[in-house]
Each structure stands twice: as C-alpha cells, then as structure tokens.
C-alpha cells in the first residue's frame, strides 16, 4: 500500500495547474464574470489538446489512457480555479460523442437532479431536455435550465467509456463533482489563510486571534478528510466510497467558502472579492446527482447490507 501521489500524478497535477494559471487565472475569471456566461471555445479546444476530455480514453482510441485517479486530480485543479463549462459531461462523452474528446464539441447532459448546465451554449445534450426552462442562476458562471420532471430521464442506456467501463455515468459525475468541490475547498482555505495573515486589526494580523485561527484550522481539517476520501474513491471506484467522498467534499466546499467569507469580513460580502464565486459554485454543484440525501441513503443502506460488512 502506498496511498500517496506517484511522481507522474504529481507532475500531471502541476502541469494542469500551470496550464490553468496561464489560461484561466484570476483576471480571466473576473473578466468572464463581467462578460456573462459565454463559453470560451478556444480554451475548450486547448483543454481538449491537453487531454482533459480524452484522459481516460484508451490510447488505441486516440485517448491518453489514464485512469480515474488522474481524472480526479485534473478535476480538482479545475475546481480550484472555478473553471466554467460542462466539463464533466464533455469528459464523459469522449469516445461516445464525436468531437468531445478533442474539445471540438461541447457536450452537456440532463443531470439526475433535473438541471442542465450550459444548455444554450452546448452543441450536444445527452438526455431529454424537452420543455427546459431557464433559471436565473445564482452562480454567474453556470447558466442553468430546469427540466420538467417527466422529461430528463438521465443517461440510462448510454454506453460508458474509459477504464471503469462498468460504472454508469451517475457515480462518475458524483465523483468528479466531489473532486471539483475538493479543489474549491482547498482554494477557499488558502484564500482565508492569506487574508488572515495580511489583514490587521487591533494592531495585529487577525490570524493571531483564536476565533479566526480555529475557523481556518477547521477548514483545513475538512479539506484533508475530503481529500483522503475523494482520492480513495478514485482508486476503488466503489459507489459507497464515492458517496462518502461526495458528502465530505460538498461539506468542505460549502462550509469552507462560508468560513472564508466570514474571515474576509465586509470585504467578503462584496462582488469584487472572489469569495462569493467559491460559494455560489459550490452550492450549484451540490445539486448535481449524488447529493446529500442520495449519498446518505446509499451509505445507510450499506450499513445494513450483507455485503457492506
């Protein structure tokens, strides 16, 4: 057992972080917020070239041939910078929908929860989006449509691809969502700590006050627990592990963003600070398939199932 990142995994993570810092840094994020939700097709193709979507496709099919753990590390980095767009749906469509693997085609999907992200901007929609109504989305960078209950049967019957071909798309969506939440949670914790070191009140950095210190420590504890759970779920691809990872990652991201806001005081309540973007994206992701209720029920059933013990 060596439950740590391999050198290759470290290098992959660092490479993706570098790419995203260059192509979707803080200024780009803020510009995107000002411009409104429009998909950056050039960036999408660059992600495709970097292997973001084809990561788990076998090399024989033109993919990168990596596995779930690598995909999770990549989605974690995407979560860190709040990279917008139907990233998971396009990734899951690589090898199924033409052009998805290369980033030529933008694919979105009707989520089990009845929402579709980026419907108007996507080239292909998986699932039945008949009668979809736009919402005024809380997250400025995630346009949303709501699908009537009768429609949107989800993705049953669609051939899943990649190294874990046996797993249907719903658990994978939940796992990658958890990875994005983990990235956002870690970023919120770092942002809070930076601010706590720099901002002075009563003649000292606010980070010297225990009330602030303890908020930051709790953020880190949630991040580290979620990280262990998300990485382990990526290794085992076990639906119960995925449910656990999702619960802890949702918690780490949502509570982390709220605590980050509190550490920023009045500044945290402004449009100019990035903190609300963390929180709004984290909230948006909690609505995807495999959310709290679903995960808790699955984990409860595991406790009393014969195989669960």
């Amino acid at each position, binding site marked *: *057992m060596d439950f*740590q*990142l391999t050198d290759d995994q470290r290098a992959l993570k660092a490479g993706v972080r570098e790419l995203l810092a260059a192509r979707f840094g803080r200024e780009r994020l803020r510009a995107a917020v000002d411009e409104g939700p429009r998909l950056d097709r050039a960036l999408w193709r660059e992600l495709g070239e970097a292997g973001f979507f084809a990561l788990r496709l076998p090399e024989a099919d033109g993919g990168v041939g990596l596995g779930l753990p690598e995909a999770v590390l990549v989605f974690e980095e995407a979560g860190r910078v709040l990279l917008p767009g139907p990233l998971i749906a396009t990734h899951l469509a690589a090898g199924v929908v033409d052009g998805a693997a290369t980033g030529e085609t933008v694919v979105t999907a009707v989520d089990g929860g009845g929402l579709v992200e980026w419907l108007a901007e996507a080239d292909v929609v998986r699932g039945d989006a008949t009668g979809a109504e736009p919402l005024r989305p809380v997250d400025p960078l995630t346009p949303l449509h709501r699908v009537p209950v009768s429609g949107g049967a989800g993705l049953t019957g669609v051939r899943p691809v990649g190294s874990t071909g046996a797993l249907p798309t719903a658990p994978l969506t939940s796992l990658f969502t958890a990875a994005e939440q983990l990235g956002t949670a870690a970023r919120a914790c770092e942002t809070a700590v930076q601010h706590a*070191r720099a901002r002075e009140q009563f003649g000292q950095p606010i980070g010297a006050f225990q009330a602030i210190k303890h908020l930051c420590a*709790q953020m880190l504890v949630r991040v580290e627990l979620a990280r262990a759970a998300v990485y382990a779920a990526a290794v*085992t691809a076990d639906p119960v592990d995925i449910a656990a990872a999702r619960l802890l990652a949702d918690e780490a991201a949502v509570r982390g963003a709220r605590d980050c806001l509190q550490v920023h005081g009045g500044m945290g309540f402004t449009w100019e600070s990035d903190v609300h973007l963390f929180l709004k994206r984290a909230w948006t992701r909690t609505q995807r398939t495999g959310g709290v209720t679903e*995960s808790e*029920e699955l984990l409860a059933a595991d406790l009393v199932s014969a195989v669960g013990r």
Partner: protein
Amino acid sequence: MDLTYTPEEEEFRARLREWLAGVLPALPPKPSPDDWPGRRAYDLGWQRMLYDAGYAGLHWPVDAGGRGATPTQHLIYLEETEKAGAPYVGANFVGLLHAGPTIASEGTPAQRARWLPPVLRGEEVWCQGFSEPDAGSDLAALRTRAWRDGDDYVVSGSKIWTSHAEVADWCELLVRTDPAAPKHRGISWLAMPMDAPGITVRPLRTLAGSTEFAEVFLDEVRVPVSHRVGAENDGWRVTMVTLSYERGTAFVGEVVACRRVLGEVAREARKNGRWDDPALRRRLGGLNAEFRALWRLTQWNVSEAQRNGGVPGVGGSVFKLRYSHARQELYDAAAEVLGPEALDLGREWTLDRLSSLSYTIAAGTSQIQHNIVAERILGLPKGR
C-alpha cells in the same frame, strides 16, 4: 495512489489472522472495568502472548527490541487485532505507545536495555505524569520541582489525571529542574519508579463511575539522576517527541472499532424500528461516510509516514480533531437509536458514550489542536 497491499503484506495479514484465531478463544474472560489489578494482569498477559508470538513492539526499531515493521504492517496489525476482537493495549498504553518509543529514540543504551524489554515482555506498566492541577493545556507551566542531591533528584509536587497510576510500575514524569529559566527551558523528563517512598496515589472517580485516573502526590521522592532521559532542562523537546507518538497511531484501531459499532447500531435500529425514521437513518449514513473517510485519512498518513521513514507528523492533530468529534457523534446516534434504554448503564454503548466525552479533552484538547493546526500547518501567527 495504491490501496492494494503487497504479497508480503497480505502474507503478514494471513499469518496474523491465523494466530489470532488460534489464541483468542483460549483467553480468560475480561475482568470488570473497576478491577484494576485484574485489568493489569489481563493486559500484561496479552502482551506476553504477543511477545512470545513475535508481535510485541511491532513498530519499534529492531535495536530497541522491536520488530522494525513498516508502518503499513503496523496498520494491518491494528486493523486485524481489532477486527478479531483481541484485547486493547489497555494498561500497556503509555509504555507501548509513548514512553517506550520516547526512550527508544532519546534514551542511552543503558536506559533502553533497562526499560524497553520489560515493556515488550509485559512485565512492567507505565503511566504518564505530565498534567498538574495548574498545568493542563499550558503544560510548560508545570511546577513539580526536582533539585539535585548527590546522584539523586529530589522531587516534590503533584500530578493529576494520571491514567493507570494505581497499577503502574514507572511514571514518565515531567519536572522543573531550573525554576529561573524561561518556562519551556527548565524542564526535565524522568523515569520515576512508582514504589519509591514519598509517592501517594489518590484515585479519582470519572463521570463514568470508574477510577480510570488518579492524583499523584510527590513528597521528596528520590529519583536517580541516571533516570533522566535527555539532557537536564531539555525535557520540553523530549516531551514533543512523546506527544508526537501519542497522536501518531494511537487511534487507528479505534477507527476500525467505531466502524464495527456503527454497523451494530444500524442493525439495532432495523430491529427496533427506528430505521424507518429517515432523519436518523441518514444520520447513520453520514457517520458511515465519516468513519470511511477517517480510515482513508489513516491510510494516507501511514503511507506518508512510510515515505518519511516512519516519523509521525503534525497531521495527527488533523486526524484527532475530526476523530474525537466523530466518536462522540457516533455514541449520540447510538443513544438516539436506543431511546430510553440509552439511560441504562448496563448498556455497553451508554458507558462508551460517557467515555467518549474525554476524547476532545485528553491528549490535548480540541482547542489546543486547532491552535497547533493553525500555527504549525497553516503558519498563522502565534497569539498572545
């Protein structure tokens, strides 16, 4: 990232399982929680069996009499012994998990030869004399004095919350050897024999009704200078070594135990109908996530330690913060499942619920752990 075990590790697990299956049925019945001499004998007997089978001091270095096992083997050992329902380290806790490792890394050859083998063979029990009535979280404020008189220190003062003091042979004792020095600089770490004249042990009753710990009064107790581990006045550094071991792997087996208890709680809820309450059912599901993740965090920390040559890091504080809380939540949920029966001290979970209250206090309170995480991991400024 690899969660599979090597063939050697699997073989180690298989042999251990087989051995446990052979010896556990023949163990005498567990003594009652308040029978301390009985508990001592039981725990030492188990230690002797481990020693004879080659499992004693698994994670200790070979030159300290240990088996030099890898952190992963140690993890497997803790997992399997707990799953098999083997006895807990019990009264051997301090000797095996912190005094022993501290002496192994900081002691002289003579000190290692004197104190380590009896711990491994199950012949001597240690206790921890760190806390004092006025020095708990602020451990460096301790006032128990030791002054030199020839080849001895003469020690006077008092200690409190000393677990297992009633049945201990030795005490890892912190004393102030230089009252003029800044508070962290004048401390020394001594091994004190518990039968020395001048020691009075007064058992304290815990909220669970048992006599888990005691107050220890020291009235001019003579401790040979040769019993000092580390240099004079360098005891604070030695103490940090001890505390890193205390938070390192101490809770691993307990996470496995909590997962087992959670399964039992769920099955109890199924039997008595409480399972139909979705809020309660989902709460138990959430706890399942919690303990699964804590187990993954353990595997993560152990793998990290293995890469760093076996040294436990401050990551132990991250683990302890969440685990101590989760354990309390587990027994609160168990009480919810039991309903009125949760008030019956005859139920095992009721006693466990009471004892879980100590987890956010003992071995450094949650508030102190938060400070450690914030200052030493996140690098936030020290408060005044």
